[in-house]
């Protein structure tokens, strides 16, 4: 059996696995829904179909996480999640529809020999997901001015324009962006690490 380290840090995944922690599930939903929606839409799924697929994914996860189907020593969570999503999309595409033969949606992903395009789309969305989370964290924890400068850069303003708008030197703007960049990098590394950790 897995041994617990002396200081066990409770991660979201471990709380979710607990099964009785409703708050954990809600948080889990919030955290991963966006990723799933965007990925499904990127695969050409319509709004309603994406909705159904995500339902399926969370249902699979609910059972899978509790029955220890996901095991961090056997692989990364994001790969496991990707498999769940792929399966859900395939299940959804091949569900029997009224008065129709089971149809394989040409746009949907199928498992099997694999589809590098879909895998790279997933990597992209997963990356974006971590950025979004890290950015949200940064927004809450960084000081006000830095956030404003960062938002300006996010919005597409050049360093020069930003400097003008905020009455700073360009060098100062660069410095702020450097700091934010470092924060993001740190935070993302932490997030990625935590994603695969169930205990401590």
């Amino acid at each position: 059996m897995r041994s617990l380290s002396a200081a066990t840090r409770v991660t979201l995944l471990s709380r979710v696995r607990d099964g009785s922690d409703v708050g954990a599930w809600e948080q889990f939903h919030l955290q991963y829904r966006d990723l799933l929606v965007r990925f499904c839409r990127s695969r050409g799924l319509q709004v309603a179909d994406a909705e159904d697929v995500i339902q399926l994914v969370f249902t699979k996860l609910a059972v899978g996480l509790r029955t220890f189907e996901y095991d961090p020593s056997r692989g990364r969570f994001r790969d496991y999640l990707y498999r769940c999503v792929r399966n859900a999309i395939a299940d959804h595409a091949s569900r029997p529809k009224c008065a129709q033969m089971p149809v394989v949606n040409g746009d949907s992903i199928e498992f099997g020999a694999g589809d590098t395009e879909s895998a790279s789309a997933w990597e992209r969305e997963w990356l974006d997901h971590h950025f979004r989370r890290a950015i949200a964290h940064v927004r809450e924890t960084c000081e006000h001015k830095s956030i404003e400068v960062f938002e300006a850069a996010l919005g597409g303003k050049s360093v020069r324009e930003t400097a003008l708008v905020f009455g700073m030197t360009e060098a100062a703007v660069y410095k702020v962006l450097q700091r934010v960049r470092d924060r993001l990098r740190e935070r993302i590394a932490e997030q990625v690490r935590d994603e695969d950790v169930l205990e401590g």
Partner: protein
Amino acid sequence: MRMCWRASGVWSEGREVGRASRMDTTRLSQVPSPQSDGPDPAFGFDAAGDEWLDLARRSVRPLDPSGVLGAYTIVREIGRGGQGVVYEAVQPGTGRRVALKRLGVGAMFGSRARDRFSREVAALTRLSHPNIIHMLGAEIIDDHPVLVTELVEGEAIDRAADKAWAASGLAALPAVLDLFVQACAGVAHAHSRAVIHRDIKPSNVLVDAAGVARVLDFGIAKLLDRGTPAVTATGFVGTLAYAAPEQLERGAVPDTAGDIYGLGAVLYRLLSGRDAIGPEVAPAELVDRARRGEFPPIVSVRSGLPPDAESIVRCAMSPDPAQRYPTVEALAADVLRLLADKPVSAHAPSALYRLRKFYRRHTLGTTLGLSLAGAIIVLSIISTMQAARLTAQRDRLIAAAETEHSLRDAAELAQRLIAESARGHQDTAKFLMEMLRNAVRPEFARPEDLQRKLAVWAGNRIDNGALAATPEAEVSVRVILGQMLRNAGETRPAHQHLLAAIAQTAALHGENSPEFEYLRQEISTIIVDEKETAAIFAEALARAENASPAERAYLLNRLSDMARSIQGDLHGAEVSAALLRSLELSAANPQGSYGKVVQSLYDAAWLHLREGEYDQGRAILARALELFDASGGIDPVSHADLVTHNGFAALYSLADEDGVMHYRRAVDLFTRLRGPDDSKTIGCQARLAVCLQRLGRHEEALPPLRLRLADLTRRHGAGTRVIAQQRFRIGAALLAMGRDEEAHRELMLAISRGKIGTPSESVDPPVAEAQLRTVREALRGCEYRIAASPCLMNGLGDQGWLLDLAPRDVPPPNDDKRKALTD
């Protein structure tokens, strides 16, 4: 490198790689999709420039909320509730803005269900009242009911009330009560049209911009034909806080009294500012409190309110439906009287009611006394006819019960019995009655064992066919037994019963029925111990062997799911054997989809492959392919996937000859299924080329290599690494065939990443020439076979990045670590 590599087909030393890879669990022990690429992305932070910022910008790009749903154009999502998602949309034809509620539970399947649905919708569209949001119609889009209603911008009535209190203090009372009365008017109108809401709660009453209260979502619960609001697989609980306690029993028939309770609870919320039975209460406790009518007096939450308000709420929220207001009009009338400062009519709790409460609250010190009270409580909620039948039982219960605990169990059984009886399920009821009679036998004397023993005894009887003639009854009883055993902590037998029940339900009603859905959720609440999963799996397989075809189809799918959850176990061999057996059984039931089983088999085979047990791994997939080939023409998609898996297993086992054979076949199949340019087809071509090149069959490898290059170019653009690597392969093949000039061109393009010819970015010619020479020598030195051989890798030196290595060509990531292990 320490190992001695041979550039030939099977590399026995290569198995050391496999073993070493087991140690590096994070990287190589994942189940790969056969074409998984890429190490961890660096998130753009490694690059010197602003790549990270570009990525950050990309990540916060807003998602287009619009889309299409049937003929409607979705503008945006308005909100989401327990039942489904609500969108703002544009109606085709009229261009009018409407609200679409897409109900989450799909499966409007059979014509009966659809007819029932249409009739319900017709009844709802006839509701026309200023305090009701008009339903314009409903459609079934992709098997999901989609309800079309007026689009009303507004806020929930509880928020409106809270704002009023915050703004004006106690002076807001008349306004708040007025809103409530409006809501009552809407509900009363519906009742007069024989429509029951079934789900009254604050979020279902909107107050629009003009300050008019409008009730929405009438009768949706009936449309869904839902039973009790259940705890779903994900653990979310629907709003129990506003549901009348008697409505939470299984088999409850919704009626106007339930709606009146809901209105009462809403009134409580509006007046006090909080739910009567708050969100901090756990679901099971919540139901109990509702049954006992336990919630804090309003005045304790908000002082200054007239005491009659309390009476009105208590009357409307009485646990006993018969004690509530008889009609919504009566409730509204009392509220109006309150507004007008006139005396209200809400009656004081009756003597019997008070007596009951007394027994509930005060133990008489003897368990017998409590037993008596318990029995009275049980009896008090059933009709007199049934009471007569149970009177005789009651005495026995009291005599036999030693603790409150066992009496509660027996009483619960009695309640279920009553419920089943009320639904007309006489066979079920009869069986339960028998169980109850047995509850007083001496061998069940130890009360804590009561549920479990009863369940085991009953289970034996059923397994021996006691209810074989009445499958519906058998299903019902199995479900009850399963739940009892689950509550008693006996997960395996619980699972067994529920599995049998769900399989039978799948056969009787289909997997899209509400009955099936209910059971699916029930079975998923059983948290199974890892150790037991394998045993459950074996039991499921045994059941599948003996089941009817319809049940079997369901069970075999379930087996695949279970297989995934017990992989990595010692029982790997059993799993794969069982899956193969299930595939054999499936062959007799051709109209299935085998995607899941195929995937599970792949996963099972992979477990062997990654441990270096290549023969076992390949055997599993080979046997599966035999079965597919033998059954002729079932599920061509899964068939093609299976061929691909066999190819990949061969490739991974370095059995390249077989790899070629399988991948050729796969290319054929996919070309027929999906066309020659499809990504799957090309993927197989790529793998085919890898095998061929490893075997030194360069001429044959060239066409698939070129196809892959064309595909990559389409998708990635010329300057990328993957393209360069592919050109490298092509160059190698051409060199081997003696076509030097073409080869040089390809290799140059590879080395310079496609930059040759662009003046501003041309590579320094002498450097490029030198690199080309290096590459050529390296290739010649190892007979043009593209593989992770020392001679090739050492020979390439800095140009080593040109190698895209197939799985198991990848050398161990950390040479020092491996050295330490093998020392």
